[in-house]
């Protein structure tokens, strides 16, 4: 097991290098450059544009720019400067990291807490009224884009004369120090993004769980358990669910990375201070070091998530061994 984790950890580094290399050159395929926004401003002369190009190192060949960036990370832990903010990339990402992780983690927990029981229930009461209703809601949840759900909920809140229409805090609490009332205000805002971002996942997870359960319930060992005279509750929870849940653990490993970058439009509509919209703005502005660093981070989260899922799988399922 230790060897397995070590091997997988070591693979992360060359993978990240490859990701950054590809990402760097893909960004360069965008037409135009960061400096185009300067040209449109009446204040700037061609001379300024040339000077800034030199300052940012954009006059050097691409491979040199890339090499210097990698060298900066390896030697100084410096992920480069943001062109649009004149600040190190790491600080800018740090400012947005906490909220991103909070929302992603809570949305993930929310979707599991809702989806797993529904999946079990609909598999056990297959083709019943509950199953039909859950399937309908599931399809609706999959079909409605998250941002649309967000807009619908905002319209609903407004029509009920509500005030919490996006963001993570009421206006007066945003820059206030932490207090109990600030926490309450935060919770009053938090449910909206968690539902909006989580619902999509509820729908797909619930369908997966139902399918896995149906698969498992038809297995010989479940029949054996039942014929031993075990209570149905024990058959379901001890024998069926524990086996049916394994594939979902692998999915969870993948979905963490998706929750950070996948909810871009919803985060924009809901006014969330998260990484998704930041990445989008940086791509638009061709702020290259911010973009590659965020892509690196996203790949890192994905790989760590996968590794954790694999480890977790080995722990919950004694049949899985990596030796």
């Amino acid at each position: 097991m230790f060897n397995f984790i070590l091997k997988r950890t070591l693979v992360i580094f060359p993978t990240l290098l490859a990701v950054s290399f590809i990402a760097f050159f893909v960004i360069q395929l965008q037409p135009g450059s960061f400096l185009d926004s300067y040209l449109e401003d009446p204040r700037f002369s061609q001379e300024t544009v040339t000077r800034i190009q030199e300052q940012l190192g954009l006059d050097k060949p691409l491979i040199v720019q890339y090499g210097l960036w990698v060298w900066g990370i390896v030697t100084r832990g410096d992920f480069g400067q943001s062109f649009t903010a004149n600040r190190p990339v790491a600080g800018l990402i740090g400012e947005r990291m906490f909220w991103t992780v909070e929302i992603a983690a809570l949305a993930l927990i929310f979707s599991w807490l809702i989806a797993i029981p529904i999946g079990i229930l609909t598999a056990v009461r297959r083709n019943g009224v509950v199953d039909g209703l859950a399937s309908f809601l599931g399809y609706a949840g999959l079909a409605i884009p998250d941002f649309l759900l967000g807009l619908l909920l905002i319209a609903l809140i407004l029509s009920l004369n509500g005030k919490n229409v996006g963001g993570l805090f009421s206006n007066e609490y945003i820059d206030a120090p932490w207090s109990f009332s600030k926490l309450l205000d935060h919770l009053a805002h938090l449910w909206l993004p968690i539902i909006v971002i989580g619902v999509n996942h509820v729908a797909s997870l619930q369908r997966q769980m139902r399918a896995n359960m149906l698969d498992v319930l038809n297995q010989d060992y479940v029949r054996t358990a039942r014929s031993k005279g075990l209570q149905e509750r024990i058959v379901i929870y001890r024998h069926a669910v524990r086996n049916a849940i394994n594939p979902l653990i692998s999915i969870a490993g993948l979905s963490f990375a998706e929750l950070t970058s996948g909810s871009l439009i919803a985060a924009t509509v809901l006014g969330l201070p998260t990484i998704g919209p930041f990445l989008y703005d940086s791509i638009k502005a061709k702020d290259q070091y911010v973009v590659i660093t965020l892509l690196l981070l996203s790949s890192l989260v994905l790989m760590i998530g996968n590794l954790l899922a694999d480890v977790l799988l080995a722990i919950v399922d004694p049949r899985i061994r990596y030796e």
Partner: protein
Amino acid sequence: MKKFVLAALLISSLGVAFAAATNGEPRLSNMPKLGLSAGKYGGTLTLSLPASPGSFNYYGITDNNTYTLIGNVFEGLVEYNLETYKMEPNLAQSWTVSEDGKIWTFKLRKNVKWHDGEAFGADDVVFTYNNIILNTEAKGNSAAGFPKGIKFEAVDDLTMRMTLPYASGAIIQQLRTFIMPKHKLLKYSIEGGAKPSDINTVWGTGSDLNEIVGTGPFKFSSYTADQKVTLTKNTNYWKNDAFGNKLPYLDKLEYLILKSPEAQVAQFKAGTVNALNITGAQFPDLKQGEVNGAAYKVIKALALFGSPPHLSFNFDAKDPLLARLFSNDKFRQAVQPAVNRQRIIDDVFNGLATLPGTPVAPVSSFYFNTIKYLGEFDLKAANAGLDALGLKDSDGDGIRNFAGGKNIEFSLIAPLDNAFFAGGPIATIIQNDLKAVGLKANLQTLQNSLVFSKLNAGDFEAGIYGFGNQPDPELRKAIWQPGGDLYYWHRAMRSSTPGGTPNFKLMKTWEKRIWDIFDQASKLTDQRKRGALYDEWQLLNAKNLPVIMIAKPANIAAVSNKIGNFVYNLGPIPGYVTNHIAYLK
């Protein structure tokens, strides 16, 4: 050298902007004329920003969100009069100009303090111009607006002298740019021994906000990334209202960072955001709310700024047949009647736009009315014009053909997310009408920044875009003077060296004349002579159609009934804010 007092002239001819009250305090005396009243003190005004500011250093960045915030914190030597759009004294109390127009002497205002209590003076002004504004390594410098060889010197604590290499008619427009505190920035400047580019690194969004001191009505108090910027009242602000009360009225000014128009409207309807710039597309929903008794008003203003969209054809298109056609003045003149401006105004702008004039804003004193040259929407006339060029549909497929039989087909690029107009719908209407006259345009809608990149690189055939209006044509010379850095529809004329003279051989006669007009007007100080030259330019534009202007969008805002003295004369333009006179009712 004989001198005359220009400031006195300004005051007598243009209406009093600032008058000294009995105690010598400067007052905003034209408030009653603008329908503004004395405000109540206290309260918080909440506005929105479409993204986080990139920096709090005006000269370290090119970012509209930064500009909007900085307009509340810093001031320039002069400022727009909100009624006449002329420049009036601000940090400069008055100035004199030598007869040859080259030496300007500014008397600065006494008793102006930086937010940290230090006195403001001529040293700050000279420092800012020499080390920052004219420093081409500063990412947000304004060197391009000043002639090379310009000199700034301090005569005494409150007197500053500016010496120009030649008289310049629009120089006063440039002096609105913000003055920075020498005592805070000296160590990051060339004068203080730092590298010229070091000025870019100060006052980033992670820095201590107490270090950012201006002379303006508000100062920064807190910033939470992607959520909010808060500013508080400068209790020592030097400006008074028309009635002798100290400004500003508000205790606090907040900007919520809301990236999507939907989020902005939602927060506005919820009553959190007090005022919002809106587009024609959002108008029906908000206006309906107002009619149904919501506590806000939707207002429309003919403002100074704002980008009118235009249709351009690339004179230097890669396909030589298209290039020859597009650069033919008669072709563009034939196409103009096929542009259905009224339908675009009605359908795309919901009626909230007017017929376009010239590239100059209609409220500017330089505006010359050329509406009659726009003609009417008339497909027959367009067809006749194209027929006269010998462009017939020789193969009967509904599309006109070049002499060799090739269809006249080209791409039309338009921006999806321009802040002032909906490029997609405008392009679709134009595409349909061009089809009706036998021209096949293939529509390609892209992000605004990409459209600009492609246009300015000459990588397009036809396009829809808009450049912002400015009060003085000199400020938009790079766009409208042939061979300029943004004269993108005929790039071949651009000089091969930056700042060099353009290739006159490639200029059409009218383009050469326009080039001369801009060249002459920039070196004249007599505003009437400049006006006459720019009139001629606007007429040449209207007749020869370097681009075909489409519409002039109105500026629309939704404002909570709680807000008093909301001034919208400048339009939604970053860096031009009037929050010092706003108040809560």
